[in-house]
């Protein structure tokens, strides 16, 4: 039965239409008291070709890369690709303050926690 699962998977219409293969980029996820930090490998993706959507507790990261090809190919191991991955993000993220930088093909995405979600020291009043 389990084998059937693999065999029975047919191509969805969306996959047939899509020209560029989609793969999941490798990511690191880190967290400290004030933010969640996500590092993603997006080699060859330009800044303008990256889209990040945060909506209702999920975040979709997508970046498309086009590899310039000139002349005759001797071998080819990398090509046009869309890096896409969806993450669940806690509601405590302050969506307005999400920011990102791109360097050497690595995207560094900062997801700051909202004030109410940060750890807090509670003062105990003397009775």
């Amino acid at each position, binding site marked *: *039965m*389990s084998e059937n*699962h*693999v065999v029975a*998977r047919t191509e969805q219409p969306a996959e047939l239409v899509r020209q560029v*293969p989609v*793969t*999941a*980029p*490798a*990511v*690191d*996820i*880190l*967290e*400290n008291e004030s933010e969640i*930090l996500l*590092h993603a*490998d*997006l*080699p*060859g*993706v*330009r800044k303008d070709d990256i889209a990040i959507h945060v909506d209702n507790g999920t975040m979709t990261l997508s970046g498309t890369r086009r*590899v*310039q*090809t*000139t*002349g*005759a*190919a*001797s*071998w*080819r*191991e*990398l*090509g046009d690709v869309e*890096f896409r991955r969806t993450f669940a993000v806690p509601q405590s993220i302050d969506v307005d303050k999400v920011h990102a930088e*791109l360097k*050497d*093909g*690595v995207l*560094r995405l900062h997801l700051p926690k909202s004030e109410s979600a940060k750890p807090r020291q509670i003062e105990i009043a003397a009775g």
Partner: protein
Amino acid sequence: MMTRWHDIQNILGAMDLFRTQMNSLFTDFDRAYSSGRGWGGPDVYPRTNLNDTGDNLELIAEIPGVGREELNVKIQGNYLEISGSRTTDAPEGYTVHRTERPATTFSRSFTLPYEVDAAKVTATLKDGLLTMTLPKSEAAKPRQISIQ
């Protein structure tokens, strides 16, 4: 007795569910970029394209997160070696939830189809892609033959 039987069915059902989950895990895992896709070769790093533009060979290698200083390229005749290391870029004071991009060292060597002029090779590193232009040595260049 009937309830006992039902319990066994329950366990089997749970095992089936587990098996399905495990199977889909592998399918998901296959989709991860690091394990390569149809157009990628076997597990090689870094992945490269080589193009022949007549006078030059052009090599593109995919090395995200590696700076100029951490990269070494060696050329001798038609032998090319790319090696380097990637240091972890995790800042201090963070808890790690997931690491798919560990610090590594890598080295890959190629036998180019032609001898190249090592002195005229240019290399640029942009957005995690290394692009090298390798001019063919004079002997290997295409030549127009005039017919007598």
